[in-house]
């Protein structure tokens, strides 16, 4: 039971990758990429968690209270905002692709076949 969050992270990764592999629409692919990125958040969060710990903000509680790990939270915070801009960039790429090839289907792109 204590390894359940790790299993959830692995499942999110696999289902996101499955969505990317079997996708028929580039916008659907980009959204599955967002789901795949959220698996890392679950993993990082569960590494730093401590049972009975409080948030690492000491504005109202004294400094010595048991708290969860702040370093992994700092890593996750910037990552979420950066994820949004990367998704925007990928959507702009998908738009340009649609303008030139008139399709959003990865299977129909002849020019990329080796």
């Amino acid at each position, binding site marked *: 039971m204590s390894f359940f969050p*790790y299993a959830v992270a692995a499942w999110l990764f696999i289902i996101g990758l499955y969505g990317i592999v079997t996708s028929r629409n580039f916008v659907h692919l980009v959204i599955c990429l967002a789901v795949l990125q959220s698996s890392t958040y679950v993993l990082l969060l569960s590494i730093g968690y*401590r049972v009975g710990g409080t948030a690492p903000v000491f504005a109202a509680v004294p400094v010595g209270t048991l708290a969860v790990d*702040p370093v*992994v939270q700092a890593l996750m915070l910037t990552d979420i*905002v950066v994820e949004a801009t990367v998704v925007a960039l990928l959507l702009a790429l998908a738009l340009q692709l649609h303008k030139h090839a008139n399709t959003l289907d990865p299977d129909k792109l002849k020019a990329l076949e080796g």
Partner: protein
Amino acid sequence: MNRRGRMILFLLSAAVFGGVYLWGLKGLPPVGHYRGPYGDVLNQVATYERHVTDIVTAVNFDYRGFDTLGEEFILFMSVVGGTVLLRRQREEEKSEHKDQALSDESPERQAPEPSDATRVLTLGLVGPLVVFGLYMVAHGQLTPGGGFQGGVILATAPLLVYLGGDLKKFKQITSHTLVEVAEAAGAGGYLAIGFAGLILGGAYLRNVAALGRTGVINSGGTIALINLATGLEVAAGFVLLLYAFLEQTLEIRLRGGK
């Protein structure tokens, strides 16, 4: 490679990933029994060393400030890339002028006017939202918040103007050159504060400003300054992205008559 080949390759790699992941999990402690010393040390000393109460912001902008610099520049480059990709090329503008006559006369193409309730709600909330975003940016080192969160909240304020139907004002706000200047100033400001640390303290991004008293808004030294620079950059970056996505639709709706 056709779909079946892709599926088989995916199942194989998922199996390998699962095996390696389970093998790696053996070294991790069970969830809830965080072992490592780094987080505990930071929780104990950060308030005494830097006079801030939000340890996550202190870690973000001071102890691991160099990583956040890199992340902020990823954001900057993504915004630049998105704006470049969505720019209107010359042949698009010509063809758009030709198609203007036939595409805007169909009655179902015109977007409906927002109702009075929508307009009151959105335009009434713009002011409180801006104040709330600024509050969240400024209090980053005291309570949960900071440049990244507050910046995104600030960037949704022009969106409320768009939803309220005031298209001309929205275009004036978001296409102003001041937005681009603000974004560059935010990104460059972070770099410049780091150089101040190099000149005055001997190491890049060292906290050299006055630390102040714990619990007031100007505590933390360079943490507060970097917070403001990041908030500016994130807000301006998202407004630019929003304008890049909405530019064409905006032109058509403004020209076709409201």
